[in-house]
């Protein structure tokens, strides 16, 4: 049988695209190379009785419009907003974090009264930038080189959005987009710990340091999400991040969609310049009127399409697409909750992100190591213990700890990672935690260490880049992934891309998948099922 659409990869974007298409009446088949679905949004039992969110680990960016359109709560998705967090300082103190703005402000005042004042202004300014950018997430970027009415209308829409702001606000926004987060924070704050805490969102997942221009924009990328309408809030998916993709799969299947696990794609079948299906590694062909790839742009076009079928300029650009991985991850099963010396007993801070990097300078030095092809000797870690508020993931009293680590390069000084490198990397991270939580290592039951190498091998993210491509202006908006191909299409007719390599980029957001589906349906002249959620935009 032939499908209306064959989607390669059951990651969150592939499933989002599939669900929208299936709900519009298309017959859709998703093929997935692993024996499980989810891509980088998975819950896996890698140690008996313990569920790991072993890739992505927190949720905020997932677009609420998609959640409502696809009825994900009905299909079992529950996001538990978390509250708290702490940066431990080298001197044995800490800076606590709270979801409540005023609580945060009081905690800031403990470190700097001036910064507590500044925090109000800072939050207000950042929120304004967020409000400007959020509506763009769910729109196809216009092609500025085109004179088609649709592109011109979209550019005019952007112009009108800008016109809603004052001259000063536009200027401030342009500055913000092009600045480094370090410079930006210096304009508000004086305390190094506070700056170190606030800079975090600007570097997560990127190949930039906090002193790199453009890093402030990345901060926005992490702030424009929300949990139940609380902009900037983050939460855990109950049962691990796999719950997001499980709910998506249920929604997709409920609409008639089909998923084939253990079906790695060998190549994309092209006939007469059109994509007509995929050939699987197991020898089967899956035919469809169109193929939609949730793989990153490099993997899609350099590994699964015959280069001769593509224009030379396009291939050159795809080859030069920047997708350097910058992070690693430790997934740890714990016998008991760790005790951090600095925190008072019973402090709620353990429910959120725990950091040990107490200045922007330490963060930037960690980045310098990455630039020279080494993992950071003094890495930045975003440590979370979701089982503090989600008891479903481990046996009672035990805990799952997720440590997101920067920086880890895709190659070590130009050569591939070895197991010894990986173990040394893991040890560096464990040692750092032990320093702040003595006795921590004794509570460790199992550790999974993931470097960019493991991430690429398992999830298929080229060079282990969690965003399927770096988030710098040369790869954002109409430049993502390749100028002229930012509208989810490719040089091959009926071959589409829907992964995070496309606008608006990475994070468990779903927007690329939904936008790609919208373009497919637009071309197929089918309606896109939208909830009332759009009315509030």
């Amino acid at each position, binding site marked *: 049988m032939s499908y209306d659409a064959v989607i390669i990869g059951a990651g969150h974007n592939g499933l989002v695209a599939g669900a929208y298409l299936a709900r519009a009446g298309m017959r859709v088949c998703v093929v997935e190379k692993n024996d499980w679905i989810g891509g980088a949004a998975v819950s896996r039992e890698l140690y008996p009785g313990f569920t790991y969110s072993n890739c992505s680990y927190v949720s905020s960016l997932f677009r609420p419009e998609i959640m409502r359109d696809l009825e994900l709560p009905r299909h079992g998705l529950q996001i538990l907003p978390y509250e708290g967090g702490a940066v431990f300082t080298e001197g044995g103190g800490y800076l606590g974090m709270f979801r409540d703005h005023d609580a945060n402000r009081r905690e800031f005042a403990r470190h700097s009264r001036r910064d507590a004042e500044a925090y109000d202004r800072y939050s207000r300014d950042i929120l304004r930038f967020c409000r400007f950018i959020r509506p763009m997430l769910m729109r196809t970027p216009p092609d*500025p080189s085109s004179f088609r009415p649709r592109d011109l209308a979209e550019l005019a829409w952007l112009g009108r959005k800008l016109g809603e702001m004052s001259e000063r606000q536009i*200027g401030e926004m342009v500055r913000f987009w092009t600045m480094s987060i370090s*410079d930006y924070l210096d304009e508000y704050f004086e305390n190094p710990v506070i700056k170190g805490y606030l800079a975090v969102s600007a570097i997560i997942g990127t190949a930039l340091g906090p002193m790199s*221009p453009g890093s402030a924009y990345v901060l926005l990328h992490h702030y424009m999400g929300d949990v139940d309408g609380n902009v900037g809030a983050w939460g855990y998916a109950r049962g691990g991040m796999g719950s997001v993709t499980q709910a998506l799969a249920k929604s997709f299947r409920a609409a008639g969609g089909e998923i084939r696990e253990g079906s790695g794609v060998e190549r994309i079948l092209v006939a007469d310049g059109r994509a007509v299906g995929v050939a699987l590694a197991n020898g089967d062909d899956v035919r469809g009127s169109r193929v939609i790839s949730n793989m990153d742009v490099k993997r899609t076009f350099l590994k699964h399409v015959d280069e001769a079928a593509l224009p030379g300029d396009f291939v050159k650009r795809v080859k030069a697409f920047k997708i350097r991985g910058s992070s690693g991850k430790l997934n740890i099963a714990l016998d008991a909750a760790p005790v951090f010396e600095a925190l008072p007993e019973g402090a709620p801070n353990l429910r959120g992100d725990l950091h040990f990097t107490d200045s922007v*300078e330490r963060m930037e030095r960690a980045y310098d190591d990455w630039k020279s092809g080494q993992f950071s000797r003094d890495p930045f870690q975003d440590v979370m213990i979701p089982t503090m508020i989600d008891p479903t993931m481990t046996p009672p009293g035990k805990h799952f700890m997720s440590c997101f680590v920067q920086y880890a390069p895709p190659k070590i000084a130009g050569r591939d990672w070895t197991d010894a490198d990986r173990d040394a990397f893991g040890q560096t991270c464990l040692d750092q935690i032990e320093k702040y939580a003595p006795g921590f290592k004794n509570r460790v039951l199992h550790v999974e260490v993931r470097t960019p190498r493991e991430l690429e091998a398992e999830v298929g993210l080229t060079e282990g880049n969690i965003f399927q491509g770096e988030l*710098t202006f040369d790869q954002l908006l109409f430049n993502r992934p390749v*100028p002229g191909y930012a509208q989810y299409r490719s040089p091959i007719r009926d071959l589409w891309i829907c992964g995070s390599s496309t606008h608006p980029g990475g994070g468990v957001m779903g927007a690329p998948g939904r936008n790609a589906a919208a373009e497919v349906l637009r071309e197929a002249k089918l309606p896109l099922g939208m909830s009332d959620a759009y009315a509030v935009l």
Partner: protein
Amino acid sequence: MPSFDVIVIGAGVNGLACASHLARQSRRVLLLEAGQPGGGMALAHLVPGLDPRVAQGMDLARHGLTFHPALATTVLHPEGRHRTVSAGHCDGPDTAAYAALHRRLTAFARVLTPFRQMTPPRLTAAGSEWGRLARLGLGIRALGKTEFRELLRMILINVADVAEDELSDDLVRGLLAFDATLGSWLGPRSPNSLILLLNRLSMGASPLLPKGGLPALAGAMTRAALSCGVTIREDARVAQVVVEADRASGVTLTTGEHLYAPLIVSAISPKTTLLSLVGPRHLDAGFTTRLSHVRSRGGAAKLHLTLRTLPDFRGADLRSRLVIAPSVTAVEAAFNPVKYGEVPDAPVMEIVLPSAHDPGPPVLSAIVQFAPHSPKAGLDTARAQMLANTLRQLETCAPGLGALTTGARLLMPQDIEAEFGMVGGNWHHGELSVEQMLFLRPLQEAAQYQTPLPGLWLAGAGSHPGGGITGAAGWNAAERIVKERA
């Protein structure tokens, strides 16, 4: 009774250009200079390209300005396998790739050049300004669809990625990285670094050396200004801008002398002008805060060596611009420590040997990057360390240079600030970076050269389009003043 129509503060390249242009519009112009006219230009040793409006408008050729033929660049190799690069041509394996890249970047630079020669538009611009912008926009679109898209992709990219994508030779890559970051506070891997190379290219493809060096340029510009009718006063340091009835109405010199004019134009740093000479009490609090946020970190040191005889850089042409920047990584590694106020082990640099061109005692002039603008170890320690590391780099490329050296002087960014008044030792009187460009330079409220204080204008490198011995900022400011007050 004011006896002048305009007082211009600072006789650098922009002050001279601005004063001359205003004087030619039959205004009586007094140009005040704390030291000697054009003194600050001594900091430079090459000219990327004078703004043609300045060169022609001041008729500098008639006042004795001539240039040596455009300099080629030799990228030094520690074992003598140098690369020679000049105007789109390089030897070695990258000849074709470099030519193609240079052609593309030059085309981009050409369509961006008109922006250098205009007052940055207000975002709430009147119709005529948008018309002009639309024409410039169409000029960019006329590059063709492919190139237009490439420009949009590359406009904020980092130079390291471009060098590594397009070229294979480490020395040529290193040169690209060096040229883009020269005078900036960015490493080649910092996004927004390529645009600085485009800015440099839009001034001219090859650096120029005036016959007689930069002092000859200063002399020619001074003579030209005098012949336009500008009155120049040397050793006249302004202590204060006089504000009366919320208007700038004159200046007070450090000697206590008052001078009055209805129009005051400052070609020195915007921060110094507004925060020190005017003072926050005459300014809006928010404006003062934003002004204090203007970043002005200098990252370059200036080295001056006196020599017994000209050195041998392993056979390199001493009449070329010599660059030590062995790779992109080397440039980046030289930048890393200054982020933390430390001195790099192996700085990169641009070397000029003026005595290979003009008769005179053998000297070596180098701009050395990167030097910390506020060294943690203290200025004297950092300077000594920077000098030692620089000389070691030089010795590697020119063995025996140390023995030929009779004197060495290194100016750290703080020294440059102390000697020439540039805040933070930054040549551009404020970093030239995307968030401080065009309508954001030096900051939004003063980007059209007019400050919020009536009667006070800016005309220095701190304003659009920045510094670099071109005179464009001064000329733009003068044109704007003439237009606004015609």
